[in-house]
């Protein structure tokens, strides 16, 4: 029984991480109909900012060596700035382009970021140790739970609530929701396009930074391709949850996390390395029966 509960907590924790990543993707999709391939690389850059730029085999912590609060603040700031810069330089000129162009553009940004990091830091995975206290376990009600998992779940809860409150209760949040539903009409009411999109990118960058910190604390490894898997799972989560729906993205994230942990537990040993492949397979099956996702958003459907 305790084993099952432990797996449940693993699932909620992993699901939280994917929910945060999916929200980062979903926010930008909502206002711009852009699927940001580079989101995974925002996460990656956030992680690499922790170490000194050098191709040396052993990584020297840079921001990673700062006191915890300063480190977190700095990483979040860096990723937010990166997101805003990407919006200004690449996505603003592409604002009225068709979805295919936007998609390829974000893929180009992703490729660019990965290879910049490759040039600066080298291609070998590097080890880093931050917030190592969180990797200890606590015993709660007879369960051994890594502190990091509790932190992940807690942080996700706080961020989700904060985001929901922001969207529901503030004027800016209302403008973003309106822009996500009907961008042109929002502009006709005086909603500033640049402001709303910048806010979405900033929020997305913030979420990416959080994911970067949580991921790096857990894995302790940096690799220039480390953003691919999170972003792919994030995409898949938004597709399952229903494109254009923020609650759907979060729900999709939790679902993907749960399926992932379930497969990890249930798959016979030889197949475990292929766990990710099975997650995608499961997703494709869901999409067979509900191509619009589980929480189909009316906004995402085209009207003739």
């Amino acid at each position, binding site marked *: 029984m305790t084993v099952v509960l432990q797996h449940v907590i693993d699932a909620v924790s992993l699901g939280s991480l994917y929910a945060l990543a999916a929200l980062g993707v979903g926010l930008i999709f909502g206002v711009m109909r852009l699927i940001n391939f580079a989101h995974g690389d925002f996460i990656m850059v956030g992680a690499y900012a922790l170490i000194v730029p050098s191709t040396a085999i052993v990584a020297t912590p840079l921001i990673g060596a700062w006191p915890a609060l300063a480190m977190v603040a700095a990483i979040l700031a860096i990723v937010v700035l990166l997101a805003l810069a990407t919006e200004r330089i690449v996505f603003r000129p592409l604002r009225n382009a068709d979805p295919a162009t936007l998609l390829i553009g974000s893929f180009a940004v992703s*490729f660019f970021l990965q290879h910049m990091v490759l*040039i600066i830091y080298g291609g070998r995975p590097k080890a880093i140790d931050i917030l190592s206290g969180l990797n200890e376990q606590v015993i709660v009600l007879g369960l051994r739970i890594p502190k990091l998992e509790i932190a992940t779940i807690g942080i996700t809860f706080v961020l989700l609530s904060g985001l929901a409150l922001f969207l529901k209760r503030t004027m800016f949040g209302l403008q973003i929701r309106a822009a996500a539903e009907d961008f042109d009409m929002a502009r006709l009411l005086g909603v500033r396009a640049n402001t709303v999109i910048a806010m979405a990118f900033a929020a997305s960058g913030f979420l990416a930074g959080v994911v970067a910190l949580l991921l790096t604390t857990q894995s302790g490894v940096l690799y220039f391709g480390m953003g691919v898997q999170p972003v792919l799972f994030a995409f898949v989560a938004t597709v399952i949850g229903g494109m254009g729906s923020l609650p759907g993205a979060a729900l999709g994230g939790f679902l993907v996390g749960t399926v992932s942990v379930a497969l990890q537990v249930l798959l016979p040993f030889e197949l475990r390395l292929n766990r990710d492949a099975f997650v995608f397979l499961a997703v494709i099956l869901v999409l*067979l029966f509900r191509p619009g996702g589980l929480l189909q958003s009316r906004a995402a459907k085209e009207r003739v």
Partner: protein
Amino acid sequence: MEGWADIFARRVWPLLSLVLLLSAIVLLAAIAGGPLIQRTVTEALIMIVLVVGMQIFIGNSGVVSFGHISFMAIAAYATAWQTCCPAFKAAILPGLPEFLAQNQVSSLAAVVTSVLLAGAFAFAIGLPIIRLTGIGASIAMFAVLSIVNTVYSNWDSVTGGESSIIGLPTYATMPVAFLGALVALTVAYFYKFSRFGLALRASRDDEFAARAAGVNVYWHRLIAFVLSGGVVGLGGVLHAHFIGTVSIDAYWIGITFITLAMLVVGGMRSLAGAVVGVVMISTLIELLRQVEKGLDFGFFKLALPPGVQEIGLAIVLLAILIYRPSGITRGQEFTLGGQIFARFKSITMSSRDS
């Protein structure tokens, strides 16, 4: 009534012009180029097969598939299993089924079966995926690529996992690659101007109108998808027999990006775009490769760090997307126009009318 001049200009020339262009390049390389240049041209010709294959689906349907390289991987491994020598297979790939492990097939047979396998795979995954909206399909295809990558990387006994399968017959010389490119172009061309291609392109531009006109968008997309999978598979086979080895990390994001960049820079909507894109980007990559190696100007040396190629490619792609999203060819095929031909046309027309 369409004069034969019109038919030539609009129907024959689009394909003929590309064939002539490639022939010219190949001849030049054969006569005046050393082995290095010929190798570059061969590689470019194989890229043409891949990019034209992608164009068949992406250009005609408007759906950007990020996972077409999975067809390349499937076909490449398939041909490797068939053409690799049994001794190697017994040692490195113990998990292969008997009929593969013990036999070594002729290259031609391997090509056919590998391409068919890629097409069959495209059909199987196309069935669920084509039902998705454009963006959903794009993401799903990326997931498929990821699945293929994961499975093949871990299935050590059958694929060799992350190590390579080596010792494949390297029959993909320049003439062979040229032939492959011709085949790809011909298939793509006849598809595009068939009623299937036309129906699909109608749906690309206005899906609702096409549906209203009775076009079954799903089946047309699936047809293009399977055809496209086969041609990309052909590219995979040629690639495997050009390098002589097959290894899973060659079929991941790098080549996906390069082929997509070639298609977009040239112009997604036309075959001319695919060819022009490959030629331009191959040249650019070659240039940047030289710069990375270091250019000696006598009194100083210019050498940029490795990785500049990819950065340069990303910047070029972004520039095209921002300033010329329809690509260098603006998505148009090469058709004959202009003063000289118009004059020629009017001469032939008037002699007919009088």
